[in-house]
């Protein structure tokens, strides 16, 4: 009589054990995540305190390393006197537009080269050469061509973003699982259907990785463009602050550029989380 009971208990047990095991495994990571965040915050506070008090204590003048409070008051002055919002918006808009245009161009050409082996063989040596060339060094050239306006900054940004995305997309197109393509062929799919149904989705992880790199490079591109020419943007504020020996202004501009970069990168990370939702988190 007791045998069927035992059997039924046994079939239930492993499932329960797995559930309990999962919880026991998750719980410490949750609390360790919690303490990691607290630790990070604590480190940040400690760092700011050190920045505020250590340089003055060592006799470093504020025109070499301004204190945190110097930066805050300079920030207020910049907002009031230097049209700070205008400069931030300029950098952000040009950075974003350059990033989007560079990404679209890079992805489009990456896919085109991925579709045609011949085209890829003909063009790739030149692409490689261009990829190695330091793109930011073109900035003065673009200023000579287009003048002191938004174009040189935009073109440098586009150029800087373009290559990593192109290379990533092309690489992923070349490494799509042949068996998947054969499967689609066996299902009588056309070249175009294979492209849209297999190759494009299969390249998404690589495209997203390229976009992440591109987002950080976009800020570098727009900054260099603003440093070498023009009278707008956070990069311009850096040269302007430098000319006035206003160290706090330079620091603030760098911090704001970093924030612009974080916003762009964060946007890409959010898009990636939506696009690549089908990949389990641990593997991302």
């Amino acid at each position: 009589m007791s045998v069927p009971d035992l059997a039924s208990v046994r079939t239930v047990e492993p499932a329960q054990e797995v559930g309990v095991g999962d919880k026991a495994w998750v719980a410490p990571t949750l609390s360790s995540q919690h303490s990691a965040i607290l630790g990070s915050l604590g480190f940040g506070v400690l760092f700011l305190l050190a920045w505020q008090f250590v340089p003055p204590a060592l006799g470093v003048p504020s025109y070499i390393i301004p204190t945190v409070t110097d930066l805050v008051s300079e920030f207020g002055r910049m907002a009031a006197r230097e049209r700070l919002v205008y400069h931030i918006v300029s950098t952000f808009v040009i950075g974003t537009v350059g990033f989007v245009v560079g990404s679209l161009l890079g992805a489009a050409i990456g896919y085109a080269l991925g579709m045609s082996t011949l085209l890829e063989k003909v063009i790739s040596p030149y692409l490689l050469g261009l990829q190695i060339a330091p793109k930011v060094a073109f900035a003065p050239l673009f200023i000579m061509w287009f003048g002191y306006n938004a174009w040189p900054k935009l073109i440098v940004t586009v150029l800087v973003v373009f290559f990593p995305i192109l290379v990533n997309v092309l690489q992923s197109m070349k490494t799509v699982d042949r068996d998947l393509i054969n499967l689609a062929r066996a299902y009588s799919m056309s070249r175009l259907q294979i492209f849209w149904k297999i190759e494009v989705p299969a390249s998404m992880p690589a495209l997203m990785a390229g976009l992440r790199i591109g987002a950080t490079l976009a800020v570098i591109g727009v900054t260099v463009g603003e440093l070498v020419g023009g009278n707008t943007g956070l990069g311009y504020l850096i040269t302007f602050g430098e000319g006035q020996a206003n160290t706090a202004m330079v620091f603030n501009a760098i911090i704001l550029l970093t924030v612009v970069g974080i916003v762009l990168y964060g946007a890409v990370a959010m898009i990636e989380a939506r696009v690549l939702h089908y990949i389990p988190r641990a593997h991302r």
Partner: protein
Amino acid sequence: MPNTASVLDLIGVTKRFAAPGGAATLTAIEQVSLTVRPGEFVAVVGPSGCGKSTILNMVSGLDKPSEGRIVLNQKPVEGPSPEVGFMLQKDLLLPWRTILHNVEFGLEARPISREERRARALRELKRCRLEDFANSYPYQLSGGMRQRAALARTLAIEPAIVLLDEPFSALDAQTKLILQKSFAQTIAGSGITTLLITHDLMEAVTMSDRILVMSERPGRLVDEIKVDLPNRDNPMSRMGSPLAKQYVDHLMATLHLEEKAA
């Protein structure tokens, strides 16, 4: 002439490849002739590198024979055909699609309505007992369930023949047994003609009606064994039969496995 009562005929098929780096050619299979009749489950066994997968690629129309002819449902094979469904060791599910959309994938190049596509996919998912996982993504399924989903996708195109290229060889021993039974039931239930390529002799014996034995490269057919066992839809019960063991022993002798191991 191809038998009118056959689904698939290979007539004197030879396949040569250009050997890597040289002018010499490599003969993968030589003068292979075989026939698969409707509803039959035929297994092809042979040593690795004997060209089993080459046969499969040619039947599916992805590759062309150097000599000979391949006839599917009285029509010569000249390219990928909607009448062939094939399954590999890898499940080849698209990770970005749900199971349901994966099953629909094979039908998307066909002139059928969205509703019919959905209905056929759901029907095959049910047959493979995966209807509860229609909206899951492949990573959420176990290896055995993924292979079942791949079978559902293969059956959804309603092929004249299903080609199975070692579909169980990447699975652990227990999952393999369960999946063999599940496949055997599904295939018997749908009455579909099947060609299984495997290196597992017991698998060939427990799942098929007839076994074709190939030699080492260049692959030729060296033996044909009719499996006279009941319960084709239940490999586990066949496995227990002493006759199955005899068939395996016979296959081992044909393939000279013991001499090689010595």
